[in-house]
């Protein structure tokens, strides 16, 4: 091999870094309304193109166009707008509460509100989500009380999880929201198992798994696809591609594939990409995938193309690894603004009503916050007990834990 030029390692890098001008020219955005809407029982092979395009409904003029439009009434859209606005207001308050030392940690949804809020409305009672930490919209849109979310965030005496979990790692069986794990990816395959169980029991309920772009590299992602594909599990497998995994751009996880949705094709799983900042598109695609699952046609993989506008978490500062103005340049816009504009366009909404709604929502969030703070915040006021720490490791406390609890004097 003496005449062989040497090898070299390729390490992908984003097009721009702090100091550079944001550049999304490589992101190809098809026109709203331009992607077909095939029947849910179409041959997966025939759906291949859907993994490489982006399904969009709202165009630049705020109109809902194309075959994926027309599923929601103005009232339903208004409700969706309010859910997103609520989530945003909630995020802002909790982010501040964390800065004020009322809790240890927070993660916000800025820019991604449409994904979880719109998806939730495609589900039926009894269906189960296996969410990551960035889908609180499932709870907001699912009617879970905000004050309970805050109690959890504050780890206070009313925390439904007794102070055991990191803030925002909510859990509500009743609201179809599986206990969040801090370990990335693990729940993607559990969603498949839950869905298999529903099929084994000849139930009608379906499951939805959630994962981030970066986390698709984890092993659980593969196991989920293998099992979902083999047993045709009634599950919707959602990838939220918000372009970043902490400081790591999506090119590292995606490698040479054109898209994350493409991963599903190697398993014969119908795989769709959708504009994650378009409430109508998210909802329409979710409906389609949920119907496939419900009709026992098997799993669907959905990639939501969106952008993480805020920091990864309260422990992170993105200006260290990406241009400050990058989020402004993001070509799919802001989900709240886009839905607002659409509602104005169809005459169901106005700037004034929006401002008023904003104020009302803020009041509701503040009221919930006051209520929650009565029960304490992380370092002050009511807190879960030391006994709570020892309970619930097992259904029945075994002798060694009883001894330890005694030793702790509680």
């Amino acid at each position: 091999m003496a005449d062989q030029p040497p090898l070299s390692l390729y390490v992908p890098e984003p097009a721009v870094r702090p100091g550079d001008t944001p550049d999304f020219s490589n992101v190809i955005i098809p026109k709203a309304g331009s992607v077909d809407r095939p029947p849910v029982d179409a041959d997966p092979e025939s759906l291949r193109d859907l993994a490489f395009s982006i399904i969009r409904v709202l165009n630049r003029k705020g109109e809902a166009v194309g075959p994926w439009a027309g599923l929601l009434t103005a009232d339903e859209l208004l409700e969706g707008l309010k859910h997103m606005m609520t989530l945003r207001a909630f995020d802002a308050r909790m982010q501040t509460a964390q800065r004020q030392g009322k809790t240890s940690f927070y993660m916000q949804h800025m820019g991604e509100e449409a994904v979880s809020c719109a998806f939730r409305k495609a589900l039926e009672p009894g269906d189960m989500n296996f969410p990551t930490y960035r889908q609180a919209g499932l709870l907001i849109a699912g009617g879970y009380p905000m004050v309970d979310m805050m109690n959890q965030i504050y780890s206070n005496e009313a925390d439904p999880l007794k102070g055991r979990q990191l803030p925002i790692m909510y859990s509500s069986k009743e609201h179809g929201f599986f206990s969040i794990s801090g370990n990335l990816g693990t729940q993607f395959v559990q969603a498949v198992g839950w869905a298999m169980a529903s099929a084994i029991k000849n139930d009608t309920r379906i499951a939805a798994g959630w994962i981030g772009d970066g986390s698709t590299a984890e092993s659980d992602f593969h196991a989920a696809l293998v099992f979902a594909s083999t047993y045709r599990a009634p599950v919707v497998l959602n990838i939220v591609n918000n372009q970043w995994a902490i400081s790591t751009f999506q090119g590292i996880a995606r490698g040479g594939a054109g898209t994350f949705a493409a991963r599903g094709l190697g398993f014969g799983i119908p795989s769709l990409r959708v504009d994650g900042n378009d409430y109508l598109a998210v909802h329409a695609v979710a409906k389609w995938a949920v119907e496939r699952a419900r009709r026992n046609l098997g799993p669907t993989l959905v990639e939501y193309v969106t952008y993480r506008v805020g920091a990864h978490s309260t422990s992170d500062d993105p200006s260290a690894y990406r241009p400050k103005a990058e989020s402004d340049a993001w070509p799919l816009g802001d989900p709240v603004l886009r839905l607002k504009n659409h509602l104005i366009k169809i005459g169901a909404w106005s700037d004034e009503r929006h401002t008023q709604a904003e104020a009302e929502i803020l009041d509701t969030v503040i009221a919930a916050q006051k209520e929650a703070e009565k029960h304490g915040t992380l370092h002050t006021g009511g807190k879960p007990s030391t006994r709570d720490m020892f309970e619930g490791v097992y259904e029945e406390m075994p002798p060694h834990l009883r001894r330890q609890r005694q030793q702790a004097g509680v």
Partner: protein
Amino acid sequence: MPRMTMIEAIRDALDVSMGRDEGVVVFGEDVGYFGGVFRCTAGLQQKYGRTRCFDAPISELGIVGTAIGMAAYGLKPCVEVQFADYVYPAYDQIVSEAARLRYRSNGQFTCPMVIRMPTGGGIFGGQTHSQSPEALFTHVSGLKVVEPSNPVDAKGLLIAAIEDPDPVIFLEPKRLYNGPFDGHHDQPVTPWSKHALGEVEAGHYTVPLGKAAVRREGSALTVLTYGTMVYVAEAAARETGIDAEIIDLRTLLPLDLDTITASVRKTGRCVVVHEATLTSGFGAELAALVQQHCFYNLEAPIARVTGWDTPYPHAQEWDYFPGPVRLGEAMREVME
């Protein structure tokens, strides 16, 4: 009473459980049509159908991960990992998920699930068919860890494990599947059909988790052990003539500390025996507990007789395996 091998007893436990509770599902690699490489699930697919007993892809992560989802749904999955040596790909799902689900959701979601796996050596299986990883599970709060040593217990403990509301690691000492091997590898093994603990009650019964059994009463020293080593200990007691009290722990987590301390307080001497490697093995926990709770009764240091701190070798299997000669020597030393 029917006489059964340990394999038959395990199969019977699965059969009884599947018959009583439609929520019990059984799957794993080669577990469905074929009935498992050790035949523990033979006939179950035919009897209960393909959606209750089926073959899984070769992904221990996927097997355990989907089982967790099923358990959270409300089923009672009892899955097989083909050899305990292959459990590691599922370790994250077991440690971070199955063990923690009840706690972190404050009981909203639970994980009633059993993970069965053949464990231990003595079959010339080399380093990937011989391991005893129990200590990697006893360190994990939220798990229960069970290891039977005979058909009667295997059936009763497995039914109890399936009915338990929490995740159970169920280790099956494969060298005992067909008879109570005592470490004398150059001698034939008595089949279970000729052993009292091969007489297995038909139908449903349980052996409670968390309770040890005294296999041999004695006054000279206490042997704490489980699985294959129970018979090695019996042989060593026989051969040394030392009047050992042999305790078969059966459940390692939660542990039956009362039975252990009562015995050591009586004998004043203790030997801990397992096949797993020494350092940070479960014997360390046993020794630590015994010295803590029986300090003033102990007349000699607690000895540990275990596999060496090397991978399980192939050719040197019997140099590695802590057989009756090695154990006998340790017992004599502790008696001095």
